[in-house]
């Protein structure tokens, strides 16, 4: 169904944290220097071998000192995912220069949530029960497991009173949260929204992806012929979205516009993507249509590019089918951050805006021999792009859940 182009929504703040470090300047440096985020797992002992992860290696506890409104009481109730989200959100809100967020809302994408905490409590409870130890584990900390915990901590720290929703569509969660938050602004439900996603590493996610045999022993090599799989990561990417009128009225600096959002479901398989990328094409096409753009208007695609055998093959097919073979520069930034699951769409939204603002396409790190059948114009080293006006970012999740966002330069 052809629809009218959507009203542009202003992006006035960005925040990021992950394997490349904390904050936009650190990310900028990592992207420019091609500094990958591949490293050893340091949060727990795994017996599965030396699979690298995209772990945040800064002092998260100290980083929380930069979050305004975080009372000692709230601080005690944070999961690692919550902490990552708060740090990224504080940066985004600071950059937006908003004096208060009280009238505003937040849409957040999550998947792992507080699992790192709750799974440890469960494992300990089972261990004691198996050992015949009658001493019970205090399960009260398990409340952070629930999906809305991050959203609630954001609302409490920033005093949000507007619409707040928590979306869990696996690895497309943040992209959906951002797209839907922009819809909420267009519908007049709120003038300003905090939107993005956050997820920490967890045993469940790590062991789960290992059980699916999709984790690479040497980190991800997206769109490489010899790629062996993904790297599980953690982080957060948050955006401050604002109606154009509100941003103009307060004289805010618009970093970029969110111009399109498309969403679809493969309805094909619980984990495997549709072999022809049918759902991915539908999401990208809808995002373009609603942005009022043609495929040839897109100057760069930040691919989902997890480096699994299935994803890269089908995503490449989908891109080639919609945009034409080799017609648009493409890169995946998963070797910088790892696959940060629900946070991926948020972090990659920040990268997309970075590309637009700096007129620079980030390299697809890790590729040695490009996947021939992909027929992509793969960005293997950072590439200047003076004529870059629009960027498309893909996020795909379990259950064939596809989301595509289009960002447009602010002039």
């Amino acid at each position, binding site marked *: *169904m052809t*629809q009218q182009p959507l009203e542009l929504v202003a992006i006035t703040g960005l925040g990021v944290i992950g394997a490349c470090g904390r904050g936009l300047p650190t990310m900028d440096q990592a992207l420019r220097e091609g500094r990958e985020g591949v490293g050893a797992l340091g949060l727990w002992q795994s*017996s*599965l071998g030396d699979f690298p992860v995209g772990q945040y290696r800064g002092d998260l506890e100290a980083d929380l000192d930069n979050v305004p409104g975080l009372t000692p009481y709230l601080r005690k109730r944070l999961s690692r995912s919550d902490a990552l989200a708060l740090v990224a959100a504080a940066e985004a809100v600071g950059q937006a220069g908003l004096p208060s967020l*009280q009238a505003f809302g937040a849409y957040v994408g*999550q*998947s792992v*949530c507080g699992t790192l905490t709750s*799974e440890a409590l*469960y*494992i300990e409870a*089972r261990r004691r*029960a198996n050992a*015949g130890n009658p001493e*019970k584990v205090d*399960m009260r900390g*398990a409340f952070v497991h*629930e*999906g*809305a915990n991050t959203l*609630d901590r954001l*609302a*409490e720290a920033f*005093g*949000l*009173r*507007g*619409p*707040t*929703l*928590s*979306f*869990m*569509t*696996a690895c497309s969660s943040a992209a959906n949260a951002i797209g*839907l938050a922009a*819809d*909420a602004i*267009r*519908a007049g439900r709120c003038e300003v929204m905090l939107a993005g996603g956050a997820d920490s590493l967890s045993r*469940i996610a790590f*062991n*789960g992806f*290992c*059980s*699916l045999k999709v984790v690479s022993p040497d980190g991800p090599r997206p769109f490489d012929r010899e790629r062996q799989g993904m790297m599980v990561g953690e982080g957060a990417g948050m955006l401050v979205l604002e109606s154009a009128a509100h941003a103009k009225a307060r004289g805010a600096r618009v970093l970029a516009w969110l111009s399109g959002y498309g*969403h*679809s*479901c*493969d*309805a*094909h*398989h*619980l984990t495997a993507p549709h072999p022809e990328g049918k*759902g991915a094409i*539908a999401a990208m096409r809808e995002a373009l249509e609603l942005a009022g753009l043609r495929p040839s208007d897109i100057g760069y695609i930040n691919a989902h590019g997890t480096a699994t055998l299935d994803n890269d093959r089908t995503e490449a097919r989908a891109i080639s089918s919609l945009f034409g073979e080799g017609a648009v520069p493409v890169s995946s930034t998963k070797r910088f951050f790892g696959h940060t699951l629900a946070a991926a769409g948020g972090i990659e939204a920040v990268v997309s805006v970075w590309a637009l603002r700096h007129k620079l396409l980030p390299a697809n790190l890790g590729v040695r021999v490009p996947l021939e059948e992909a027929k992509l114009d793969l960005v293997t080293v950072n590439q200047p792009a003076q004529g870059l006006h629009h960027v498309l970012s893909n996020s795909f*999740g*379990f*259950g064939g*859940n596809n989301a595509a966002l289009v960002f447009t330069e602010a002039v």
Partner: protein
Amino acid sequence: MSIIVTGIGVVSALGPNAAAFRRGLLEGSNACALHGFERFDGSVVNAPAYMAVPAEPEGLIEPRKLRRMFRLARMSAVAARQALKHAELEPASLDPSRLGVVFGTSFGAMEPTQKFVDSWIEGGEASASPLQFMNSVHGILASQIALDINATGVNLTCAQRDICFEAALDTAVNLLQARRADVLLVGGADEITPMLHEFGSHTGQLVLQDVPGLDPWGARRGVVPGDGAAVFVLERDDSPRRALARVAASRVGRHDQGGPNLAVELAEAARPDLVTNNRDGGARCARLNDRQQAELGLHVPAVSHRGNFGTWPAAGAVQFAANVLMLCNGEFFMPLAGGKPVELKAEAPKAILHNAPSISGSHAAYVLAVSD
């Protein structure tokens, strides 16, 4: 533009479908019973609960698809098919890209998640079960439904504790109004597993002694848990199908940050003649209180039917089913409290305000009205 409800499906402790659910509510059936919950140490605790009856997929879902579905996924998929059947809507007759699913669940896929963790606790991390992992993500219920009916449109899952269904409803209303979909299956489901029961027992939230049923107005002595699924077909009011009820308004926000009271705002505009809420006797849930009602000149009953079907985070979906049925059949369901009917005077409502302040600080409210 109004959003209407054109189909309803329910699997609950009151029965395997909407007809049984309605009969149970009309007759004041109490579905609370003692159930055995296995603890981590292998012992079994008998405690009251409202466990949903087994879903009846015969004639609705192909057996080969059922094999891949765990209990909660079955309940959800069966309720979805019931809703489509009730709306006399054959999914194959629709453009699949305009058919979507929006689901609310707080606990999500607890059974496969626990099985997944158990698989590596017992056999070592290399023995982790990929099948259980695939099923462990929150979005699995919405994905299973989409897979069953070939819905390639929007597919979203809202995880927001005890307003997860209301959050899904609000999301769906907005998607339909923005014309991002034409037909949406909107639902909510959660299940009570032995692990969750043990967690809830540790935190002191659950009633463990033998009681006749949940009392939504009880003095904070804990809740009697339950489980189930309810799914609805939602469309814009230009649909050719019969409207069972109309979603006149829907809002989500916060009640903990000093913002406006959404329920009061909606009540002011809609002048409801019945208020329902998510009160379950154990949390900080509140009725639209008497003072607020008096300020608005509202003198209407405020009820919760969780004494009839139990409570769980997504139970708002089943309350929504009760509300739709009251409106479309012109009847009122007398609620139970502690296993006994609450004596109050009420007539068949024409407009129901549902007020769902979450224990987490989130707040959702909607107005459901008879169709024009």
